[in-house]
């Protein structure tokens, strides 16, 4: 069984990766082990899929804070590789306290690149940099949800791209969410509010979105000009 360890900032990324693994590799071919280092109630164990016959093990670990993702990988890199994990991935949002402190609520590509470069420098200095892949969702992983334009229509038929455009003045077919929205999760919340719901990154909210994603949606976003940060992540996570 091939094993990979993936460190995420929060449960939104964790749940998304879990579904992505299921879609891309097939649920019958994977085992999923979810661990939260941010909460001590073992509640994410409900997301585990144990399959001794699986070809791949995805061990997804919620670290609980943005900066902690890289630190945790650095701390555990050798130990994990020694334990038989072939690759280690990190995924975090660019939108963070550190980013806000630097530039406020603006998208500044230079600063984003500096965030990425400084992280990659640390990765390059790890003991096995070829086995560690670190990715940023720009600005948040919700940008990737917004990049799957028709996902909201699947949740509620009322939420067509056109309806969202009329009500919220942005057309998901025409924009690149990673370049347009500094806080994509707020936009997802606005969309949810159109049907009397709210989106606050709770497990239930994220599940509602992720369970509607299928292979065609992934293909569509890959073939579009949207969400380059997702494409990089997708390429690495599906080719270890």
């Amino acid at each position: 069984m091939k094993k990979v360890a993936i460190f995420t900032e929060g449960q939104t990324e964790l749940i998304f990766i879990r579904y992505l693994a299921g879609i891309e590799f097939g649920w019958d071919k994977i085992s999923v082990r979810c661990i939260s280092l941010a909460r001590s109630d073992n509640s994410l164990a409900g997301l585990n899929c144990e399959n001794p016959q699986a070809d791949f093990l995805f061990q997804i670990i919620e670290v609980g804070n943005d900066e902690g993702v890289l630190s945790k990988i650095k701390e555990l890199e050798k130990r994990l590789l020694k334990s038989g994990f072939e690759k280690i991935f990190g995924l975090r949002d660019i939108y963070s306290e550190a980013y806000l402190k630097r530039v406020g609520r603006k998208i500044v590509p230079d600063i984003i690149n500096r965030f990425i470069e400084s992280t990659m420098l640390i990765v390059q200095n790890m003991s096995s940099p070829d086995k560690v892949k670190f990715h940023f969702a720009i600005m948040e992983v919700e940008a990737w949800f917004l990049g799957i334009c028709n996902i909201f229509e699947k949740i509620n038929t009322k939420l067509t791209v056109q309806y969202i455009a009329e009500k919220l003045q942005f057309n998901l077919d025409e924009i690149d969410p990673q370049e347009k929205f500094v806080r994509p999760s707020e936009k997802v919340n606005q969309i949810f509010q159109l049907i009397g719901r709210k989106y606050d990154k709770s497990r239930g909210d994220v599940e509602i979105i992720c369970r509607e994603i299928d292979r065609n949606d992934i293909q569509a976003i890959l073939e579009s000009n949207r969400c380059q940060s997702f494409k990089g992540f997708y390429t690495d996570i599906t080719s270890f």
Partner: protein
Amino acid sequence: MQLQLITYTQFEGQPEEWRIKDFSFGNINLIVGKNATGKSRTLNIIKVLGNLISGDNKLVYKSGDYKATFDKDGKQITYFLRYGEKEVIKEKLVIGSDIKLDRGPDGKGTIHAEELGHPINFQAPLSELACVSRRDSVQHPFFEDLYKWGKKLRCYCFGTQLGRDHFAVFKDEKEESEINLKNTDQTVIIFKKGRKKYANEFVNNVKNDMTQIGFYLNKIDIGRPNSITFHGGIGQPQCILLRESDLKGTTDQNSTSQGMFRALSLIIQLNYSLLASIPSCILVDDIGEGLDYERSSALIKLLINKAKESRVQLIMSTNDRFVMNNVPLEYWSIMQRFPNESKIYNNRNSKKQFEDFELTGLNNFDFFTSGAFEEHNPTK
């Protein structure tokens, strides 16, 4: 004899009720948990039990109900003790399936008489434990194991001064007195006695152990403190003096770092105890407190090795992540707090969770923070 299992309740039925149930122990144990989960309290109830059954402490406690099971060469010894308002309510000793002592709230009961070959009636004062007041190696030799276990129990609170604030005045060099090894503030006296009784073996053991944890000492001695002046006619107080390998001068215990002195004191006391008589059980609360990462790790390794070599049961507690990361999960018992109760998770009662986590490649501390030791509860 080794402590195997303990169940304890105090203030049953009252708002202050607290209990632990079936806390099982191995040879080496590390109790981990957040603050106020009952780690120190657990060590304390073991210490109190030891002091009560050895007669070192009088029954001064308001409430307690013990069931302690010991293993003696494969034989199970179970001791029950319930008391309230300084009086024994119930006391019972069962060895294998034989009831050796059974006593009720009026102090009356039966006790097996070895030479007669059958139980006899007795009545003990309510404030006294029968296993202490009726100790008799001819008629009731079965109390001896309990007594020795309690007498040889050692408890060190690593988060305390461990004698750093205690100097010693020696009035008469020839005068020999017994040391109470349960008093952990007597570092100076114990070092002096250890050096006199065991000479170089003791001093070298202490120095070697200190080297192992990263404190390099050329000399350990006793003498007048060089950082404090005393006035008055109480004699000349003596303290521990150290010559560190990278320093020219001598450092007295008052000027030594707190972490270093705690380590030194623990090592002095342990080495003396191990040479004088093998302890039954060593309790160390807040192990590693005040030490840096490398030294706390090295101290833990040293203690575990000593316990293994001398077959002493070791029960430590901590909430320090460095310590947790350096002690294998097989030795862990995680304590979790619930109203009126502390629950325990270890590889004896939560084997699957412990084994599964070892496959994750994460640090031991992550096992603690993730709550992965708990069985998944879908209702959460």
